């Protein structure tokens, strides 16, 4: 009797939490199908409208949104590929080699995890301007490349790989790079997927640094365009902003539905093992 009562409370609370969690998503999707006046009327809150294409047209009038989407894909995609490559190689070095200074270097990397990124904003601004990279996608990609969490995650995964297999491949005459890319890395697919998705989604939604680093409309990523469409003191086309938000949200939701397990494993890798 008591058990079922507890179960009922648990269900009720969880279902309420699920509704609260999902509601703003549903609302955003529905808002993207309404006109600007309908968005602010209660009776349209849970109805689907038929102004989606019109809203999209209005969005494309004020911003080259497909271009902005391509920028987001480029920035997040290149960033993710480089993080996977650099972090896995570094993680492998920390996990499978003994060399002078290994622990010192690893400690230095971990220590910098506790320093907020805001500390490097001004120096990066000066540095990237000097390199002539400001207002280019590289200004967004480069600063976050040294992803300490990624190295940590990769190191953790590689430590579980049996040393005997690496030794055997060496005796067979394979070079260390060959061993890494053809024997070790392919067995670490889950770790690569986890880190890849987390890196992509983080860069996809990145806002503060791109706001500083990018100035021209053609170089904007999607969050930047949306943020500039809602600046105070102007007439705001909320319907157009909402369709923009939906376009930027859909890829992430699809990723999540497909790779849900890797997503959550990646987050737990930091929490439970760390």
């Amino acid at each position, binding site marked *: 009797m008591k*058990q079922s009562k*507890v179960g009922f409370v*648990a*269900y009720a*609370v*969880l279902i309420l*939490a699920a509704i*609260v*969690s999902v509601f*703003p998503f549903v*609302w955003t999707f529905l808002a993207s199908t309404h006109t600007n006046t309908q968005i*602010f*009327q*209660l009776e349209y809150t849970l109805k689907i409208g038929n102004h989606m294409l019109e809203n999209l047209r209005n969005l494309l009038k004020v911003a080259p949104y497909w271009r902005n989407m391509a920028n987001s894909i480029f920035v997040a995609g290149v960033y993710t590929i480089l993080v996977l490559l*650099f*972090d896995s*190689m*570094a993680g492998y*070095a*920390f996990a499978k080699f003994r060399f002078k200074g*290994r622990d010192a270097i690893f400690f230095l990397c971990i220590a*910098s995890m506790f*320093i*907020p990124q*805001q*500390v*490097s*904003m*001004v*120096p990066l601004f000066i*540095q990237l301007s000097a390199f002539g990279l400001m207002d280019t996608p590289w200004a967004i990609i*480069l*600063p976050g490349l*040294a992803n300490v969490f990624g190295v940590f995650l990769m190191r953790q995964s590689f430590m579980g790989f049996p040393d005997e297999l690496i030794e055997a491949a060496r*005796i*067979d*005459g*394979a*070079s260390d790079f*060959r061993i*890494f890319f053809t024997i070790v890395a392919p067995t670490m697919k889950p770790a690569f997927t986890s880190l890849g998705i987390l890196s992509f989604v983080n860069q996809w*939604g990145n*806002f*503060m640094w791109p706001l500083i680093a990018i100035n021209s409309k053609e170089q904007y990523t999607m*969050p*930047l365009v*949306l*943020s500039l469409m809602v600046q105070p003191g102007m007439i705001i086309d909320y319907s157009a902003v909402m369709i923009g*938000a939906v376009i*930027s*949200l859909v890829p*992430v*939701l699809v990723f*999540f539905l497909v790779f*849900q397990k890797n997503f*959550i494993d990646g*987050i*737990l890798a930091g*929490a*439970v093992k760390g």
Partner: protein
Amino acid sequence: MGKMPGVEKALYSRRGCSMKKMLVPFAFLLPYLVVYLTFTLYPTAYSVVLSFMKFKGGNLSFVGLKNFQFLFSDPVFFKAIANTFIILLIQVPIQTLLAVVLANFLNKKLLRCKGLLRMIIFMPVLIDTVSYSIVFRLFFNTENGMINNFLRSLGMEGPDWLNVGFLSKAVIMIAMTWRWTGYNTVIILGGLQNIPMELYEAAAIDGASTGKQFWNITIPGIKPVLLFSVILSVTGTLQLFTEPYLLTYGGPVNETLTIVQYLYKVGFKTFNFGAASAGSYVLAIMIGILTFLQLKVTKED
């Protein structure tokens, strides 16, 4: 490299330190170290230098502690610190408590659809900060926002959310709690699932009540993940930027201006690079002290 397997074999079979063997790990580390040194370590160090400099027209001049004096004589800087800490001290405990409750419910043995519920509760963290800040701004619009429209349909007049000091902070806290509770629930659930069931069974046989089991088994069992979750939330809240930037525009009259928003204005609106660097180190030191304290407090027993 693969051309002369005989030579390689010879190199590796000797236990002596050959030059090549020493260089291999560094070759693996090289790409990471290059970006780490260029885009993390160098800017972090250069920021220390800038804290004591005046940067004008590309020229640096040493000004001692002037930048820090500038910050600590600016009431707006203190206002930003106070705002950030008020949000931190109210929002993080509420969010953590909610996450612990939800995680415990999700960990119940007999519950159906656990996976689905966990997935949905985790979802808010997927929306980018810009979109969700705009959506919450619309929700809390005074004249025609969904919340006040709904209250009006019940015959109540909703408050002027975004134009009253404390309410605007509350809206930011509500938005953050919506976005981050599920994420922390999943982290804490990960900790709960690592607690062996036998501990609870043994305690039940010994006649320990559910409450006692919670305090003596669950809490110690999830302490590491709880600590991780709280440190992450505290650090994240101290770096709060997008929500006040887009949800409340920092207003009304600086009531939701946060530390990072202040630094952004000083650094990139008035281009006072020295003061922005100095301020970023004030923030770094606050984060360092708070992280240290949290680690210390939980180490006690």
